[in-house]
């Protein structure tokens, strides 16, 4: 049972790590602000969720697990909100989605 728990938790941790990294690459490589935002939010939802779930399995039923659950809850509340606020600010300043994407510009010409 303990081995199974370990295997599952390591699996979650490495998957989470992979998602975090993929999101990071996306945030660097995507062509414009809004697509980058989409990539960055992947690290906060999938990545953070899987990693914290993995640590929780290691921590077992303890105060630490409750704290981790709270951290995940707050992350899931604040991070999409922050992205939303940022998108509002960018739209307010007149940035339109898709303008920086190369094929869009070609098709417009």
């Amino acid at each position, binding site marked *: 049972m303990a081995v199974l728990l370990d295997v599952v938790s390591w699996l979650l941790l490495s998957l989470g790590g992979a998602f975090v990294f993929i999101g990071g690459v996306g945030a660097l490589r995507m062509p414009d602000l809004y697509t980058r935002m989409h990539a960055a939010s992947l690290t906060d939802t999938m990545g953070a969720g899987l990693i914290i779930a993995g640590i929780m399995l290691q921590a077992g039923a303890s105060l630490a697990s409750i704290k981790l659950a709270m951290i995940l809850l707050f992350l899931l*509340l604040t991070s999409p909100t922050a992205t939303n606020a940022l998108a509002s600010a960018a739209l307010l300043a007149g940035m339109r989605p898709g303008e920086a994407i190369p094929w869009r510009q070609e098709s417009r010409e």
Partner: protein
Amino acid sequence: MIALFGVFLLTLLVITALAIVRSENLFVAVMLAGIFSLLMAAMFFILDAPDVALTEAAVGAGISTVLFLAALALTAERERAGSANRLLALGVVAVTALIVIFATFDKPRFGDPAAPVHQHIAPWYVERTPEAIDIPNVVTAVLGSFRGYDTLGEVFVVFTAGIGVLFLLGTRPRRNSRPVSVALDESDTGLRHYLIPRVVGRLLVPFIVLFGLYVQFHGEYGPGGGFQAGAIIAAGMILYALLEGEEQALRVLPRWALTGLVAGGALLYGVVGVAGMLLGGSFLDYSVLATDPIKGQQIGILLIEAGVGITVTGVLLSVFHAFAARERF
């Protein structure tokens, strides 16, 4: 392995610092300073200082960005081109850098238990804490009791800085100095029209204040204490002010209450010290506060930490309101 993580973080720190100094857009510099603070907190944590990391987190994550942005809104967003004698400055910096780096070769090896810093009084603090004060967090014990006089000084510096900001920005500016005013009607203050941030933010405010109180009163058992708690509670109230507009925040916690907090916390600290004198001990000696000296120490630390937390909350909030009010004139 963890040491290598530390090296990586330190390298990121240097890159960030260079970028901060190079960027001519002050807004970008402030954003990068936010990253710098995050890296600093992670570094403190790796170097076994969770208390310091918590302080950096509480101050750097919200308050320092908010204050710098408020100052930028009142001044200018861009640095004007042109610089002082850059070559001379670079020369001075290079020479000083050589001297400082030369001095590092004489420093004790990193992490050496035999280094002079660890010989003098620090081991005594670690040894004496269980028998004299009996709380798990040695940092809080040293901060509150062994070096309580020091902390009193620091609290008064924070107090004085807060009073200074109030003196500087509390007066009304001359009318002609700021011709443009942001005229708003009551329903349009803060971020009231941004539904999602408003709903989530309002939900979070009580949690932040509650967590601040936890940090305040859990400071004897884990990382925490008055300085961190004050910054966290102030951050929660600043969030409320950002969402609902500053007038609403001032209705909840009016200016006279803030001034009361600023003075009351420092006063509480001083009164605890004087109480020790009146009960037959010396200034800031808590052992006489209860019949059992250990109990007295714990009561004393609890009280002065509360004083610290109250003053820090009051000062940071007063400073925020002073800057925010300036923007509306």
